[in-house]
């Protein structure tokens, strides 16, 4: 079998497990949160990260750019810090915004990362912003999106902070679980001769998906407002 086919087959096989998470969960989640105590918040947080394709696409874009494990750890830590701040802070303070608008900005982060990975800014003569700073900034936005989602549940006010922290913990667990196959897949692809084609394909896909998601969220915003 040609190597390019092996690589695409690997990509498909690695992504297939995500299908198991791809079920509609919100109603079940609400029932779970109502009955399951703090553990339920961890579970729902993890589920939302694993089924939140916009978060996963952004993480894929971030990891694709990085080569060493140390860099991955550094950038993911900054992203995690960013989303923790807004997830915990905004939820605790009850700050929310229209979810479609927040998701639209998250979609822009995916678009941005794809363009950056393709050196698009350099090509048009724009200095690329500091990546670490941008990852931290988008971490804040993603956290706000997660907070908006958490606030859409009926959580009650008892043990409120604990519930937020447990949801946050679940998000981190979900993020780690999502990163394992993503990092594995990207590391595997780097050893292949067709890596450049794969790199371009994934990052162009991020551009297309980011733009598509952005337009979709804006459309939904105008549809519902």
């Amino acid at each position, binding site marked *: 079998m040609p190597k390019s086919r092996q690589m695409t087959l690997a990509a498909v096989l690695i992504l297939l497990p995500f*299908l198991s998470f791809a079920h*509609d969960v919100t109603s079940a989640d609400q029932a779970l949160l109502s009955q399951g105590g703090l553990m339920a918040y961890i579970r729902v947080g993890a589920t939302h990260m694993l089924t939140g394709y916009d978060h996963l696409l952004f993480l894929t874009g971030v990891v694709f750019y990085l080569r060493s494990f140390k860099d991955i750890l550094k950038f993911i830590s900054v992203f995690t810090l960013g989303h923790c701040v807004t997830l915990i802070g905004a939820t605790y303070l009850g700050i929310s915004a229209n979810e479609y608008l927040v998701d639209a900005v998250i979609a822009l982060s995916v678009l941005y990362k794809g363009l950056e990975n393709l050196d698009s800014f350099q090509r048009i003569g724009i200095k690329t912003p500091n990546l670490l700073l941008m990852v931290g900034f988008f971490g804040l936005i993603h956290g706000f999106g997660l907070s908006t989602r958490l606030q859409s549940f009926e959580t009650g006010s008892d043990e409120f902070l604990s519930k937020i922290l447990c949801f946050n913990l679940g998000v981190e667990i979900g993020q780690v679980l999502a990163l394992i196959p993503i990092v594995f897949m990207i590391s595997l692809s780097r050893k292949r001769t067709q890596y450049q084609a794969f790199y371009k394909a994934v990052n162009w896909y991020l551009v297309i998906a980011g733009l598509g998601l952005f337009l979709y969220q804006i459309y939904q915003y105008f549809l519902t407002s």
Partner: protein
Amino acid sequence: MRRPCILLLLVLLLCSHDLYLKMETYFVPEQSAVSLQLYNGTFEKSENTITRDRMLDASIVSHGERKAIISSAWQDLDSTITQVNFNTGESGTYVAGVSTKARNIKLSADKFNDYLTHDGVLDMLAARKQAGKMKQDAVESYQKHVKAIYQVGEKRTDDWKTKLGYPIEFVPQSNPYDAYTGDHIRIQLLHEGQALPDQLVYADYVPSGHQHQEKSGENHDHTHNNELGDHHHDHVGDAGQHGHSHENMEDENSNHTHTEGQQLRTDAEGMLSLHLPHDGIYYLRTIYMTEAKDVDSLTHRSKWATLTFETTHRHDDTTHDHDHNHEDEGIPTWWFVVGSIVAILLLFMLFSKKSTNA
């Protein structure tokens, strides 16, 4: 920050409380865990729990059988929401109901008039004006009786027509789950088992999958409810101290009202025709108020009724799983994953070909 909080506190203190039986979605799978919540406030936000001793009846009807929800099954989610968790049974159309004891409240004339205005008890307001009683204080006995009709699985059963025997209740004339978006449904209002004619009813809806936050992004201070504690509207018989009405200040600042949506009036047979223009959870409310002429301790009696159910569009009946939620409104995740793989594969082949040609 402090000023809006005080303002919100005032709003909560001053507004009256409808009671609704609310579910995340009224389309639920068979044998699945669900929560039935009592919302005491507005349909969007509950502000008080319901103490068990207030409940005269709490029951669920399915397959011709009425089962009581035992008092101990109810839990307070926090200081604002009372709920019961249970597993749905076999497929069918279910009816849940809660009836509460009567309680009294004493209100100044102004507050009573404001409450009548903002809660849409317009017939009594007109009667007070006509009789020159606008300056008379009121002592009102009120009681609340609420129903929800939900669909478990796909099979429609006849329990939707069950009369729970509450002092006032809405009874649909056809299964709400045989009605679809764009349809009308006829609903009868009964008072003491008899048709209640010429009664104002308000109906509104929230979109399906609607969650518990205001779309506008309004801040949601989780501490307010605790701060309020027992200070408002969960009346404990000590009439006179608690606001039951909307004051002008509140209205100016919050546009809070209980009369949004469709305003309907029952005909001579107590019937009304409710339009279902959009997918969503519909809720009807009415307050039937009379003057209490038989006792000196009261001036008025009111009986509050609500009914909730959900409507979806016609073709969905055969194509979706009735699990209404955020994901239903968005792109299903598995579509996205499959689409992503296909798109990446196509792009990969394209760039591979390009690099080979180069």
